[in-house]
């Protein structure tokens, strides 16, 4: 193990702000992208069910 303690790990030799700022940015970007994708997929599937129920309604009315 190259670190003497967890404290040393978080301090990053005095450069903690920069290193963890970079890590935080990366986590935000990747996490944000994954979240946005989840929303997009959910939105697409919701839209499809809306279209399906809309066209379903029409055929039921036509048959009457």
């Amino acid at each position, binding site marked *: 193990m*190259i670190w003497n303690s967890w404290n040393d790990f978080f301090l990053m030799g005095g450069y903690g702000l*920069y290193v963890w700022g970079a890590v935080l940015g*990366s986590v935000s970007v990747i996490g944000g*992208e994954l979240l946005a*994708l989840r929303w997009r997929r959910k939105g*697409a599937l919701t*839209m*499809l069910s809306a279209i399906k129920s809309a066209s379903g309604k029409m055929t039921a009315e036509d048959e009457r």
Partner: protein
Amino acid sequence: MNRLKKEESVSTAIHSPAVVLHSRKRVQWFAYASPQNFYSLAGKMIPWFATVATMLSALGLYIGFFVAPVDSQQGDAYRIIFLHVPAAWLSMFIYLVMAGWAAAGLILNTRLSSLMARALAPTGALFTLLALWTGALWGRPTWGTWWVWDARLTSELLLFFLYAGFMTLQSDTEESRRADKAGAVLALVGVINVPVIYFSVQWWNTLHQGASVSLRSAPTMATTMLMGMLVTALGLWAYSIAVALTRVRCIILERERHAQWTAGLAS
């Protein structure tokens, strides 16, 4: 072999709803140009790439933060390299792949190719932003500045604007095929920027350091540091494939919302 028969079978393969892809002894690759077939293929591929991405990224970052030694000149600030370099490599690589798909869509007039280019753009743009962000955080303690208008940084920023321009052109929902073609032209014109970014540190006098890793000579950095960088880069490559495939499936659902085959997928 009867040539007419072969063309018929390819055309049927693309247009028939549920294609038997392995009917002859060879895989009908052209069948995957159909959004419906590609949708299911992509769905099967995503979990594999996601798993590889998680494992390799975790391993690479473990090497970078727990195995690689401290740098003699920069101290622990250098560890940003394990995020910065993979992000920068991917920002350039994704652009080339995106431009390739855009070119395919333009030349072969295959819609799915253009959709693939669209799916790649946001991921590429985010990696470009990440390269710039991590670079600024690395530059401040080591160069004394967050930013400098040297050739490498400026051309990477330009890469971001190219991605943004491409995505803006694609946002036209009325004339979507024309948007595909316009975007493709921008993407292709912008390809020249990628070698500029890559060679900028050789061609111009830049604050950004020169290449420590090259295809022709031995790397000038410690092996553990190099391994951390490469493994993380491979992990992020797998990630970008998984994400692009997920996004293209969303795009396909949106584009094909009135088609028969999507109705079965509704939640």
